[in-house]
């Protein structure tokens, strides 16, 4: 009797997994023939994942090219970046493309995330797609954070210092011996008492080896599940029609990539990313000099950077970690929510991100009452 129950349990687990990861459908011919994309008013959102993938490919290619010239040492990192920018033919273009594409990749991920949420695309059986997606977002943020340090200029090192210091601040809220743990964690990450050569070596290793391994693995799973399950319905009303992914949607995807590449090329060729910041921030890092004004993280961290500046630390940490948990478990938390509710939440989140990213600086100065 009990044996039968055990078998039932195994059978149940098997069906659950099978529903999420229907590997028996893994047949190239079937996939190509059957995957379809619904047509409706939110159809444009189906392009966003593709855009992200495109920018990721650009990142891999340009990153490899930069790797040929970059030197990860404190005394030579900045000089080698300058060498790439000023001496190597097309080096400025490649480097600028890497910078622009990183920002565009994160932008498209964020929009991808918000629209996917609004369309309730995480519904059963697509939980795995969603969770790997959130993990990919975190990896991409880590890519951004580690890559920011590599040029070893003033803004890079000082922003990294501030970023890592926030980890240590958590210690203030922990009791007893636990209070020292965040500091140890920070020192493990940066490899020495303050940001220096060890930090650079570690960030370099993370940026060019560890994270690429992780992202390739997770991206593989993410794309595989998307292929297995096909596109989600996305809207409540019945779709106007279906379109075969292969060859129709993929050709449209390629067209979109073509336009994206043209835009990226135009930006990378004509608008150095540095031109938005005062130049002293891009001088080589000077450990003994004073900190120049205007140290900021990359724009995609503004959503937590400005609140950190304005609100109590514990509140922001609680908010960010809470949001992370909610995001990760969204398929289960919002299981019963209607698309209307989700759309409302998504608009709210988008609004918050937009306001903090674009007007964060103004809000900061308004609240702090300092000019600028």
């Amino acid at each position, binding site marked *: 009797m009990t044996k039968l129950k055990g078998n039932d349990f195994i059978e149940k687990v098997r069906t659950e997994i099978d529903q999420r990861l229907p590997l028996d459908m893994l047949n190239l011919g079937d996939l190509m023939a059957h995957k379809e994309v619904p047509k409706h008013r939110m159809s444009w959102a189906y392009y966003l994942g593709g855009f992200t993938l495109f920018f990721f490919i650009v990142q891999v290619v340009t990153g490899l090219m930069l790797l040929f010239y970059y030197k990860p040492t404190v005394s030579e990192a900045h000089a080698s970046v300058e060498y790439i*920018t000023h001496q190597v033919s097309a080096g*400025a273009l490649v480097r600028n493309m890497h910078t622009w594409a990183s920002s565009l990749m994160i932008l498209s991920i964020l929009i991808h995330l918000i629209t996917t949420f609004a369309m309730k695309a995480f519904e059963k059986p697509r939980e795995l797609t969603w969770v790997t997606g959130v993990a990919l977002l975190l990896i991409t943020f880590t890519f951004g954070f580690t890559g920011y340090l590599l040029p070893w200029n003033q803004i890079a090192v000082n922003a990294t210092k501030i970023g890592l210091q926030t980890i240590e601040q958590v210690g203030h809220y922990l009791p007893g011996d636990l209070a020292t743990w965040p500091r140890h964690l920070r020192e493990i990450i940066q490899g020495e008492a303050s940001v220096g050569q060890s930090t650079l070596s570690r960030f370099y290793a993370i940026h060019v080896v560890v994270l690429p391994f992780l992202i390739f693995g997770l991206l593989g799973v993410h794309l595989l599940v998307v292929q297995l399950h096909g596109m989600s319905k996305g809207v409540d009303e019945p779709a106007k029609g279906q379109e*075969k992914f292969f*060859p*129709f949607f993929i*050709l*449209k995807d*390629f*067209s979109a990539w*073509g*336009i994206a*590449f*043209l835009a990226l*090329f*135009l930006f990378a*060729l*004509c*608008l*150095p990313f*540095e*031109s*938005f910041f*005062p*130049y*002293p921030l*891009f*001088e080589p890092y*000077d450990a*003994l*000099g*004073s900190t*120049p*004004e*205007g140290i900021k993280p990359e724009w995609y961290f503004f959503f937590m950077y400005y609140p950190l500046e304005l609100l109590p630390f514990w509140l922001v940490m609680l908010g960010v970690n809470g949001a992370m948990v909610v995001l990760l478990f969204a398929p289960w938390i919002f299981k019963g929510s209607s698309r209307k509710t989700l759309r409302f939440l998504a608009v709210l989140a988008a609004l918050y991100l937009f306001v903090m990213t674009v007007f964060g600086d103004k809000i900061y100065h308004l609240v702090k009452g300092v000019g*600028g």
Partner: protein
Amino acid sequence: MKTNTFSPPRHQVRQEFLTKKLFYLRDLKKRTYGFLLFFVPLVSWWFMVSPVLAYPDFQAFIKKNSGRSVDCAFCHANSNGPEGNGPGQIGSLTPEEFDRLNFARGAFDPGRNVNSPILNAFGNRVIRELGKKKFIEIKNHPADLAKALDPKVDLDGDGIPDVQEFLDGTHPLKNTDGDPGRLFLANFLKNHTQILLLLFATLFTLYGLNNLLRGFARFFEAEDGEGGR
């Protein structure tokens, strides 16, 4: 036991500077060209023993005018200004560099071939074009520097003239630094062939993809039609 080589943030030199400036102007009045031969060595000596300071008036003006913060490296060789022992600062000069420095300090008239080791190419250009005398006059109303310099010269070749870069608070010697709008326009015009090339490539590709798409549509339609029959 050694001294600490630590340079203070540049805004702090300002107060000291204001008192020193008076001395300097008083000295200037005394000088006449006839005495120049006699004075140059003397003046050089005076400069060698007295601290030399950046001109924070310009720095303050740029920041106020453009909203961008700049450092001494706008005109000087070192971002912490001329004083100190770092590279491009007075403390680290060789005798030959001192000669050049002193020559630059004595260049009161425009047109002298100044190549001061504590200045960068832009700083040297300013002294060469204006002469030290005019430069010190302008110091009290820094906006006039933009009018006094040749409006066409563009040392870094980024397509934005130095004068404009001075007003924008962007570095006249860094071609990746410039007002984003102006830089975009200049680079766009400079690289128009590449852009045109890629534009055509993209248009052709889009044209091709679009036709493939239509071809497939008809192809599948025909197949469906056949199947239905």
